[in-house]
């Protein structure tokens, strides 16, 4: 049974059990949040999502408030804006930005709301970092607890998405810190470097270490991981023909926000200097282009020569034809690749069977 309620003077239909926040979002109404994330359990601690409900004496946190028939809700009023600014200013009092990141990066969620509500750093609070910037040796996750606002999204991401329980709040009240394990390094606390905590962090206290200075991408391209058969999807962030980071694409069919260390951080091989950039042939192939079978197999001794594509294709085509026409199609073997596209595998199958005439085609599924 759908429920009808009113948000900001608009009649809204909600599903039974939906919260005000969910119902608002489903109808394109933005309510600011920090500790809330749709993929995490609700804690309702930051109170940025407060709304006014007719009949209630105080503003209510929308993330935990279940929609009821006939409710009348307001999400943006001058009083709420004032309250939100106060909440943000309290957080700013303990938030210190050491300004190491490139100026052209996107605002974090936190910065976005700070700007939107015009929150100012309260006078008297020290802008200098109180804690070590980049305090954990994990090669993938950047830790700068000067920016921590204690939303505990990382704690929940690690526990409820990854099932690893690395992060935990330590201490009480204003002296609370988020620490890894028993105040060890992340890896010692059994971190698997999946990057979920960084992906969920709204302030950049946890971030992708490889990308901290990388700035804003020119474009984001949703694609599928090249490592294992789970088939996770994510966004490649590209700037100037380089992949600068991987971000989760929340509605990925298989994995949602989840990724593993290889998918999230194993992309830099694409730009490795070892990449083959031009076709190469062994020198002996250029020296005796017409002799057929007399050439001793000397590839290991013969040095590589970089050539253009035409030369490489011509030599390869000639050698494959020779084998096929001299010794029969079954003297040629084709190994296709479980790393390559379906379309490429199809072509390799067609190549072996149509062009060469053999069924000697396989890949390493067995291995």
């Amino acid at each position, binding site marked *: 049974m759908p429920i009808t309620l009113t948000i900001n003077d608009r009649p809204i239909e909600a599903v039974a059990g939906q919260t005000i926040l969910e119902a608002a979002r489903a109808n394109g109404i933005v309510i600011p949040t920090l500790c809330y994330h749709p993929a995490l359990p609700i804690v309702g601690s930051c109170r940025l999502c407060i709304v006014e409900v007719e009949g209630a004496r105080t503003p209510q946190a929308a993330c935990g408030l279940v929609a009821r028939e006939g409710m009348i809700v307001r999400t943006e009023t001058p009083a709420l804006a004032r309250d939100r600014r106060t909440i943000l200013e309290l957080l700013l009092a303990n938030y210190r930005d050491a300004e190491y990141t490139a100026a052209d990066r996107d605002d974090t969620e936190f910065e976005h709301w700070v700007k939107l509500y015009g929150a100012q750093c309260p006078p008297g609070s020290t802008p200098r970092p109180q804690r070590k910037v980049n305090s954990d040796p994990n090669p993938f996750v950047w830790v700068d607890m000067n920016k921590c606002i204690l939303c505990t999204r990382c704690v929940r991401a690690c526990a409820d998405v990854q099932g690893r329980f690395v992060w935990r709040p330590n201490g009480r009240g204003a002296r609370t810190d988020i620490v890894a394990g028993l105040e060890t390094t992340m890896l010692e606390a059994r971190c698997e470097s999946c990057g979920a905590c960084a992906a969920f962090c709204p302030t950049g206290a946890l971030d992708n270490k490889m990308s901290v200075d990388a700035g804003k991408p020119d474009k984001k391209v949703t*694609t*599928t991981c090249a490592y294992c058969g789970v088939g996770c999807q994510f966004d490649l962030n590209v700037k100037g023909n380089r992949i600068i980071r991987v971000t989760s694409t929340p509605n990925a069919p298989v994995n949602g926000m989840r990724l593993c260390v290889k998918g999230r951080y194993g992309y830099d091989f694409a730009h490795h200097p*070892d990449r083959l950039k031009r076709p190469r042939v062994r020198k002996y192939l250029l020296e005796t282009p017409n002799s057929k079978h007399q050439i001793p197999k000397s590839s290991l001794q013969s040095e590589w020569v970089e050539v253009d594509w035409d030369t*490489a294709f011509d030599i390869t085509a000639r050698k494959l034809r020779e084998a096929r026409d001299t010794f029969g199609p079954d003297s040629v073997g084709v190994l296709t*690749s479980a790393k390559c596209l*379906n*379309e490429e595998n199809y072509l390799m199958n067609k*190549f072996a*069977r149509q062009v060469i005439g053999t*069924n000697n085609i396989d890949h390493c599924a067995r291995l």
Partner: protein
Amino acid sequence: MDDVADYARAMLIIGSNTTEQHPVFGAMIRQAVLKRGVKLVLADPRRIDIAEFAALHLRQRPGTDVALINGLMRIILEKGWEDQKFIEQRTEGFEEFRTTVMQYPPEKVAEITGVPTASLHKAAEILATNKPMAVMWAMGITQHIVGVRNVMDLANLQMLLGNMGVPGGGVNPLRGQNNVQGACDMGGLPNVYPGYQPVTDAAAREKFAKAWGLAKDEGGRMKDESFALSGKVGMTVTEMIPAAGEGKVKALYILGEDPVMSDPDTNHIRHCLEACDFVVVQEIFPSETAQYADVLLPGVTFAEKTGTFTNTERRIQMCRKAIEPEGEAREDWWITAELAKRVLAGGNLQSPISDAPYAGWNYENTAEIMKEIAALTPSYAGVSHERIEKGERLQWPVKGADHPGTPILHVGAFPRGKGKFAPVEHLPPAELPDDDYPMILSTGRVLYHWHGGEMTRRAKGLMEIYGQSLVELNPEDAERLGLNGNRRVRITSRRGAMEAEAWVTDRVPPGMVYANFHFPEAPANELTIAALDPVSKIPEYKVCAVRVERVGGNQ
């Protein structure tokens, strides 16, 4: 996978180190255990990470999976936990199967597998009384000479319990590389065309011969008989490379594979590739295999091309080009097509008839190739880039342009009508420990690396965390070898030797060592045995006999 994570009430993970090899699925399983109280039974010789989340961990000896599964099924039958209705209506061959299984009483199974009878009873109860129950397996099941038997026996178990064709049930193979499923679907196998249409089937041959222009054309001109599509099943990779060593295979075209790193018995592979007349390797890096190439063609990474991958649950998804190819490297599909044109242009008996619908090699993009695939592959008939780009979620079979795909297989019926129970007997591994080689070596992957390591060894952070090969060794064995402080070991098998740092841990049981094959300086596959499953031709990576000694220090 989401159906397993959301609906299964029990799970059996066997031969899969899920949290390291399929990490995101592993994380989903952990949440299913934590949030939904799913009962997980893990069957693995090693105490791998997911063991922490298991209700029960069976540490069967490597290579004794069939005995274990048969033993569990016998207990299920004795307790009357089988799904009689499912067996009657949906299966055949039950009686014969039952006779075989009854020969595996718990005491005998305990003796073969080393799993105590009490654990066998408990496991059978968990798996049989919580429904639906999902079985997950990976290469720990297939990389044995009895790999195919293992897989059949897991299907037996699920038919016995009526867990086939239901969300949260089934047998769920976890494929290794990201597009193993797609490579198989696309005919990257010696016995089938795309969509598993057998090359031995004359009708299938005719279909492809016509499509590819190898049949008689309209005017009645005949192609040379010797070049019609071959009906002879081809060689597998594990046959092809030795054949190159024997001079039967003269030329190899290798796309994105690194058999030197990933195939068993490396020394032999090196020798074979060296002996082969002509090897062309299409790769992104100068791989170990590339050293044996005569021509190297620079392909591109997944970030530089557009097309589709098919994941382990048959889901067809887009890979999208994000960056331009490095240097003169080119999309692999383009390279193959160009090469095909050149070979065909060389003038020979076989040049295809030009007016056959799919004879040519002029492709603008992979969307066009997918059209050809859809036309010739019934299970991909309704697949197109347009549909996926529109946001449709397609799992094959997708039988037509308006067919929504098939998230769960075998609902209501098996493709062959009834599911057949296949009685399977235990067979010991090809090589067992003896006095000279007293320990068992098993090989596999670790979280931070991938396969032959060509990509992950070139990812800086991954190397920071896991920069050298570690060999897992039980503390008891370490003590026996006198490994105090001195952690370097040499492992020797009948085929070769390697040295690596030992990680002394009770993850492995006494008598077993575990090595990965990600690092060329610690090439585990110099040791492994090229003993193959007779049907699948998969090598027995999970069991071979070795000797372990410490390196250096005073003896």
